[in-house]
């Protein structure tokens, strides 16, 4: 039984076009699923729907999101928030804007433990120290008392990772957790997330542009185009033989680690047109 | 169907027309006061003191809004009071605008020591409580319409100077100014031909707001009995009188207050409306 199970989820701009088209995907307990697709395909939108932070300008028009078997969309808002807060977490994209500039680091890690999960403050602080050590931050004691602007981008992302794992969530959504960082730091952070995930056995929904990264960290992946899942596969199978023409083209457009200098073929226009037609057909079939 | 945005625009439009309409009405009243006013605003009749307005028991026909303690007709005094209020608003507002905007433009565009001096003066001016400053100036200059106007100009030029300076500075940094200079325009020419048109909407909005402020300043000065020297009726003077007898004759205070309130509101709503419509800067 998968921990996160999204079924036929449709989201649209209020009074506007659909942004997600009957999206279904599963993340099993302890599994890492990659979510790939071009910019604007709706990757982040899926993550936001799971975490209950969809923008006010969009609405869910159908489907369900089951977290540990419970359909989040059927819950009253307060109950839904608590449930998400207690069992899931987000590793955000931009560490520079994801920490509150006027609050100390310590409080930003322990707040969920104390306020939502009802831990004692002392225990939560001990946990925060332990986590900072685990994400390899020197002098955790001092850093807990720092303000965000006193730390580098890489440090802040480590803190956000620590904070995401603090409550031992069953599921973490990581939305392009390295794109805002220096190339040199990117690899370290990626390794850190993969290591933490393995150690804690957390299920991970990993949003990225980069199929190379997917091949390294994920066990399964969903390929998204215009808010529609065009392929859902095991990573091993996908890289051996992608089933959908669009994902095959996407794969061909990705540099290989074995031969980064090999010439790349952009996604051909014919493939784009075919997948667009597929989306249009699904829209007609789906909504009559 | 109306979408939200056009609803907002319609409301903004309505407020623009309503306030413009009220101010237009005042202009008409100011010009034709002697023909409109039912009574002589200065005529006293101690036997007709503190008559209530027409719908209250004890009212006299002919005194629609009642009389004050000296038996003068409240309505006629309000109508004549428009004259002082509007002349102060127009004259003081315009002169303040010209002085303040010119200084602000110079400080913001010419920069250097001009800016240094003008900015220092603005700082010093900001350290004076404006009401006290105006009262002090009237005390020094002696009461009278001229003194009031002068006092308003002396005190309020900073309102224009501050905003226009910042705005001219921002405009001066833009490319079109540099290219005008490259094309051979002199500093003064650039200031007048390139910068001024771009800050003009801001200036017009500030001018409208300033007129409302001028009306209030005049009322405040009349209230402390330091306004015009003659006994021509002013709203502030009526309010001062109404304040002392508010428990005996509320109408002496209420009617001039409502008129003043609406006029100040109209000027500021007109300014806000113009701002929404034309001014990308202040919005």
């Amino acid at each position, binding site marked *: 039984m998968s921990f996160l199970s999204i079924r036929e989820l449709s989201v649209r701009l209020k009074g506007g076009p659909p942004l997600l088209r009957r999206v279904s995907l599963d993340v099993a307990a302890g599994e890492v699923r990659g979510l790939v697709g071009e910019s604007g395909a709706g990757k982040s939108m899926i993550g936001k729907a799971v975490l209950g932070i969809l923008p006010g300008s969009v609405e869910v028009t159908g489907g369900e999101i089951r977290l540990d078997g419970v359909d989040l969309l059927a819950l009253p808002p307060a109950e839904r928030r608590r449930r998400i807060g207690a069992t*899931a977490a987000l590793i955000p994209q931009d560490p520079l804007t994801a920490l509150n500039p006027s609050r100390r680091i310590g409080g930003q890690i322990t707040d969920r433990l104390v306020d939502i999960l009802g831990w004692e403050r002392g225990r939560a602080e001990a946990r925060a120290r332990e986590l900072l050590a685990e994400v390899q931050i020197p002098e955790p004691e001092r850093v807990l008392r720092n303000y965000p602007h006193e730390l580098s981008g890489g440090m802040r992302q480590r803190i956000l990772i620590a904070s995401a794992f603090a409550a031992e969530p069953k599921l973490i959504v990581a939305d392009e957790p390295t794109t805002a960082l220096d190339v040199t730091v990117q690899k370290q952070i990626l390794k850190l997330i993969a290591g933490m995930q393995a150690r804690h056995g957390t299920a991970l929904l990993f949003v990225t542009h980069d199929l190379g990264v997917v091949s390294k960290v994920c066990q399964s992946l969903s390929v998204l185009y215009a808010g529609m899942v065009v392929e859902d596969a095991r990573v091993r199978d996908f890289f051996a033989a992608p089933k959908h023409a669009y994902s095959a083209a996407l794969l061909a457009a990705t540099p290989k680690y074995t031969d980064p200098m090999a010439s790349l073929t952009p996604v051909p226009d014919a493939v784009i047109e075919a997948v667009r037609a597929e989306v249009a057909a699904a829209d007609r079939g789906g909504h009559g | 169907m109306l979408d939200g945005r056009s609803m907002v625009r319609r409301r903004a439009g309505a407020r623009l027309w309503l306030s413009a309409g009220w101010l237009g009405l005042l202009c008409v009243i100011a010009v034709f006061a002697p023909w409109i006013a039912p009574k002589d605003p200065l005529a006293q009749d101690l036997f007709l003191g503190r008559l209530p307005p027409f719908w209250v028991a004890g009212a006299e026909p002919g005194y629609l809004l009642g009389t004050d303690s000296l038996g003068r007709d409240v309505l006629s005094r309000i109508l004549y009071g428009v004259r002082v209020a509007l002349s102060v608003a127009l004259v003081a507002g315009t002169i303040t605008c010209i002085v303040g905007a010119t200084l602000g433009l110079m400080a913001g565009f010419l920069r250097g020591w001009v800016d240094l001096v003008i900015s220092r003066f603005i700082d010093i001016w900001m350290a004076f409580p404006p009401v006290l400053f105006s*009262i002090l100036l009237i005390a020094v200059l002696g009461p009278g319409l001229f003194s009031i106007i002068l006092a308003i100009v002396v005190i309020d030029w900073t309102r224009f100077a501050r905003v226009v300076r910042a705005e001219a500075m921002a405009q001066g940094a833009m490319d079109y100014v540099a290219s005008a200079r490259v094309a051979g325009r002199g500093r003064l020419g650039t200031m007048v031909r390139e910068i001024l048109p771009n800050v003009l909407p801001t200036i017009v909005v500030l001018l409208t707001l300033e007129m409302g402020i001028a009306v209030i300043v005049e009322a405040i000065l009349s209230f402390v009995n330091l306004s015009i020297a003659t006994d021509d009726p002013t709203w502030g003077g009526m309010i001062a009188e109404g304040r002392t007898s508010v428990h005996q004759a509320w109408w002496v205070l209420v009617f001039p207050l409502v008129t003043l309130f609406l006029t100040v509101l109209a000027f500021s709503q007109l300014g806000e409306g113009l701002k929404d419509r034309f001014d990308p800067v202040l919005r």
Partner: protein
Amino acid sequence: MQLLRVFLLRLVTTAVTLVGVAVIVFFVIRVVPGNPIAMMLPPGATEADVAALTALYGLDKPLPAQFLIWAGGVLQGDFGTSITTRQPVLGLVLGRLPATLELSVMALVMAVVIGGVAALTGTRRRGTRVEGAIDIANGMALSVPDFLWGLVLILLFGVLVPVFHISGRVTPSLELPFTTNFYLFESLIRLRFDLWLDIVSHMLMPALALAVPLAAIIGQLLKQSLKETMHLDYVTLARTKGYGENHVILREALRNAVLPTLTLVGVQFTFLIGGTVIIERLFSYEGLGNMAIDAVINRDLPLIQGIVILFAVIFTGVNLIVDLLYAALNPRLRHA
């Protein structure tokens, strides 16, 4: 380090401003027609008396020298003698200062509370009719100055529903045990709640009149910056932790949204203090402003000078404090 530099720099500009104020006050008042010395003497004084007093005050010297003599006195706390009461100006002015300070601070507190509640409610209910209503109320409150709000309050709560006092600072028949002029504060310290209530009911209307425009500004500005802050990533992150709207507004957004509002509130607070002059007159409240208007009407030049300078010191002082507060609250500046 940074804080110290900000402080010193601001201290210098403040000093320059105050010197400018002193120069202007001095020369404006010297323009007044009439011989101030003659006014200071009882009727029937001889020419020799006038000459003697003129020499005593240095008025026979050239203007710049006169200014230096006067400024030297001011620096030592000698603001001269009031012409009407023949008492030292400093004592008179300081005697009235507490009344004005209490009124201003009470108005500030009311403005912050009213404006804060409006901003928080508007943010909480953004996009609804409640927010629309708050916007309209803010717009109205901003369009009309304190003087008119004072008159409206007099009519509403002094005449129509007479629940509050609309003149004076305290009911005259009451016996006052106070040693300072901070009545509001001292009545509280002495646990004289009967007096405290009487004083509050006198202050409430003038304070509210002063507070209305500032409350509107705070309401508008704070709401705007709260709404902007609510879209930021760290607020969204807090939502995923399980926090509800109220908590997110109060703990994540409020503190960061307050900073941009603060500087403007500082300037506006000086406008509020300036407003006490006419509001005190309107409500016959025995503070500095009321005294200032009497002084102007009586042409009591030394007293006017003293009051204007005191106001200027308060204005620049408030601006200084706000700037430092801003620096202190902003963690970026504090730790840099």
